[in-house]
């Protein structure tokens, strides 16, 4: 696995959550983010495979990720809108979430997720 740190692309606070995105081709991209949601963090840092086509309203599933087992409890389960969409996704797993529905909080510092859109 290749680890790559991506620069913080906003002026930002000093303590912001750090997220590790594992891409479908096996890279680990580490970002510090002030984004409100996981999808926005991915878009801000151009994470391959995350398109966020619908802008984050839970219509398209182009921000599908698998939450690392160590983090599923803290991140929590999908909401009903999300679950209905996710259960039809080819790469659906119990740890699936849509990035647009995962609100980033300081407790999620260190969160590790894997891109699961099949698009990269």
């Amino acid at each position, binding site marked *: 696995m290749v680890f790559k740190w991506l620069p913080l692309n906003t002026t930002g606070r000093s303590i912001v959550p750090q997220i590790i995105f594992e891409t479908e081709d096996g890279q680990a991209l580490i970002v510090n983010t002030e984004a409100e949601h996981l999808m926005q963090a991915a878009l801000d840092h151009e994470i391959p495979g995350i398109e966020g086509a619908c802008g984050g*309203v839970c219509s398209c599933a182009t921000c599908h990720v698998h939450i690392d087992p160590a983090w599923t409890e803290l991140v929590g389960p999908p909401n009903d809108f999300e679950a209905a969409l996710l259960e039809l996704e080819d790469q659906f797993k119990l740890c699936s979430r849509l990035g647009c529905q995962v609100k980033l909080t300081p407790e999620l510092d260190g969160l590790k997720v894997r891109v699961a859109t099949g698009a990269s």
Partner: protein
Amino acid sequence: MSAHPDPFRQARASSCGMTVHVDGEPIPLVLDLQGVRRAAKDWQAYSSANPFHITLQSEEALRNFRQLPIETDPPDHTDYRAIVEPLFRRPAQPDYAARMRDIVRRTVDEACALGTLDGVLSFALPLQSRALALLLNVPESEADEWITWGIRAFDHDEQGPSKGARLENYIQRQLEHAAGTPGEDLFSILHRATFRGRPLTYEEKQGFANLVFAGGRDTVIHTTTSILAYIAEHPAFCPQLAADPALVPKAVEEFVRVVTPLTAITRTCAADTPHQSAGGRIGLCWASANRDDRFFKHADRVQPDRAPNPHVAFGFGPHSCLGASHTRLLLRTLLTQCAERGLRIQTLEAIPNVEVFDTFSRPIGFSKLIQRWSAQQEIP
């Protein structure tokens, strides 16, 4: 925009559902959101490989070649779709967004200069045509010819076959030109493309080119005019967008949901199902799914800040709309500029465009929308 009735509400709530009859053929409609998604996803049970029979009304009289990639199933569909996918991914590039801004700015300028105009013919049609030229990567001058085709350019009516012939002639000219001087446009891509190691046949190239005009024209025009009517009815809307630009993408999704310009697309059943026998068609009713009150609270209301908004206006599954990124960029750019300019619109006359079948009818956009436009600010 105020009149966006839901003709499927009762049928969705009852156990009887709704069946439309087209030329004597019964086509049961799938009406609930999750049912539509499931059927759209399950291409083995519900096939798209039934040429001319993707729309409720058969298109046999309009053309004699298969539309691609839509009238195929995986794995063929996957390989066909891959041929044009890179072209449809270009809207993500910054340069594409800049060119879209320029197209929208010029078209809004022209409308403001006219003052009083038909929002269909003098705004939505040129806007859609110029934007399509950008998507297909052809010179913008091509749009001038498409504009002369008017709206409902490929519909069924008494002139059906001649309308089909006009598009076929146009595509033939473009394919011949691409063969002589290949570039990076759609027609040149089709000229160079191979499918499993062999060049595309002429009919395959026609099938690809035909679909971008048939699928990418009235859908965009009707959504655009519905937005214009909404702006006229809600003078506070543009100032609200100007104050909160983050609302723009959400508002676009909401307009696309409420308008759902493509009411239904059909699939052919591979085996007997509870509602249709093998070989018969069912309709995936995107328009009904988008009003399913299990997912959309106050589904008939336009709520520009609606989120989540899990609509299926762009379809779902392997055939989901290839033009969606382009359409979203176009409509987001339009709303952004309307807001930045403080656009004011007054509607003087509105004639809805109504789609009619035996068991339902629904307005989709307008056939005429006479409006008075004025902008408070210029865009530099």
